[in-house]
């Protein structure tokens, strides 16, 4: 007879006499018995029904039709509604999308309303596609170019300020103490701690540390979209940082005044040319260590 069959019947206490004899002859017989016996050592702690009921009685009071008459069921219903509402809220919040670019890479993103965002290197953006239909609002860090579809207000939140637009093309650069917004089409409102500025087509606002400069710009879109970086009277240290982001390298300077202002640009496809474009105007010497992803600029 099959061992498992016997065990099954034994567990059900349905063994016939013959089956019982066969069961006792199984090699595991002693172990089988021991397991059932052993279970008893794990018995639940004693429960004294009489004692416990005495305890319980103290808590049983008859429902008084009175002042605070919320029956438990009503409370459960209210709690249930709150829980569903909160779950819905958390569920929607959890659908937030966050996108980031590493150094040396750019990325184009299409938003639910058809607006376009292009992220520059080492930048990130965060938005909630579910809430997008109600409110076009996103958070951004780094640099991005926006092409906004006509519609409701479109907000870009950065650490340095908020940029609000309606149907327009603009660039927002928010890197630590460097904040720059350029408007290429339409109207852009920029709100920073220091001031609020309305930019029309061809205008840009630059806030470096606390210095605010509003300028005219000729270009119709940012250079970095075409893999070039361009600067106008920007401190050298900011230029160097952008080089680091585009090429994913670390630049160390020796005896260089990085507060000097730089006007010019570099491309994103040739590291040596890019470094020359920065170093030459200041007469700096450079050393490139590609394997270590390091560049040294020295002023000697």
């Amino acid at each position, binding site marked *: 007879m099959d061992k498992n069959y016997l*065990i*099954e019947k034994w*567990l*059900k206490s349905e063994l016939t006499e013959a089956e019982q004899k066969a069961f006792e002859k199984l090699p*595991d017989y002693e*172990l*089988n018995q*021991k*397991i*059932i016996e*052993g*279970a*008893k*050592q*794990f*018995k*639940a*702690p004693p*429960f004294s*029904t009489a004692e*416990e*009921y005495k*305890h*319980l009685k103290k*808590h*049983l009071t*008859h*429902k008084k039709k009175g002042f605070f008459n919320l*029956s*438990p*069921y009503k409370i459960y219903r209210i709690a249930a509604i709150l829980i569903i509402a909160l779950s819905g809220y958390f569920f929607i919040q959890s659908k937030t999308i966050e996108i980031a670019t590493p150094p040396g890479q750019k990325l184009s993103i299409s938003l639910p309303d058809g607006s376009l965002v292009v992220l520059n290197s080492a930048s990130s953006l965060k938005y909630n596609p579910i809430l997008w239909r109600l409110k076009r609002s996103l958070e951004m860090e780094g640099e991005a170019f926006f092409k906004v579809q006509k519609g409701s207000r479109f907000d870009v939140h950065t650490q340095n300020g908020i940029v609000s637009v309606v149907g327009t093309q603009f660039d927002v650069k928010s890197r630590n103490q460097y904040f720059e917004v350029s408007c290429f089409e339409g109207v852009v409102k920029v709100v920073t701690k220091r001031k609020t500025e309305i930019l029309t087509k061809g205008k840009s606002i630059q806030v470096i540390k606390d210095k605010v400069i509003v300028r005219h710009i000729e270009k119709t879109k940012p250079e970095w979209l075409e893999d070039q970086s361009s600067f106008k009277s920007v401190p050298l240290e900011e230029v160097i940082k952008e080089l680091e982001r585009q090429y994913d390298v670390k630049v160390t300077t020796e005896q260089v005044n990085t507060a000097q202002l730089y006007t010019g640009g570099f491309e994103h496809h040739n590291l040596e040319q890019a470094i020359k474009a920065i170093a030459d105007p200041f007469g700096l010497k450079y050393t490139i260590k590609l394997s270590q992803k390091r560049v040294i600029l020295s002023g000697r």
Partner: protein
Amino acid sequence: MLKNLCVEKIFAAVYEKYAKDLHDFLYYKYGNRDDLNDIVQESFIKLWNLCDKVLPEKARAFLFKIAKNNMLNRFKHEKVVLNYQKNIPNQINHETPEYLMEEEEFYKKYQRALSKLTDEQRVAFMLNKVEGKKHKEIAEMLNITQKVVEYRIYSAFKIIKEEIKNL
């Protein structure tokens, strides 16, 4: 007059009938916890508060459901641990240290095995083999068929045996 849970005598009888079973069920399902008695109490309090809305025949199902929900709110996903009596009956004092150690090992493995069972397997197995409840009773308590009860007990047994045989 209809039999009504709001009548104390009837409520007390329901308590007498189900309190221990509910307690044991919770113990075997969720393991050793300080709040088991509290949960049993709370379940009955809730039943009392709704005594005019719950029929006596539905009381058992109600109590078990309330207790499970209550537990789910408190339950941290820890392994379920049942305790065993550490004193393997002291009448046998002349056992050798080796024997005592083997027994200890056996129970340790057993405890691990019980933790590895699903709640359902463990509850069915323990209620049947330790509390002596018939398959039919267990089926009613848990609102499942007898066949399912048999299957869970069988599975539990196999798993425990497997674990004990392993080194």
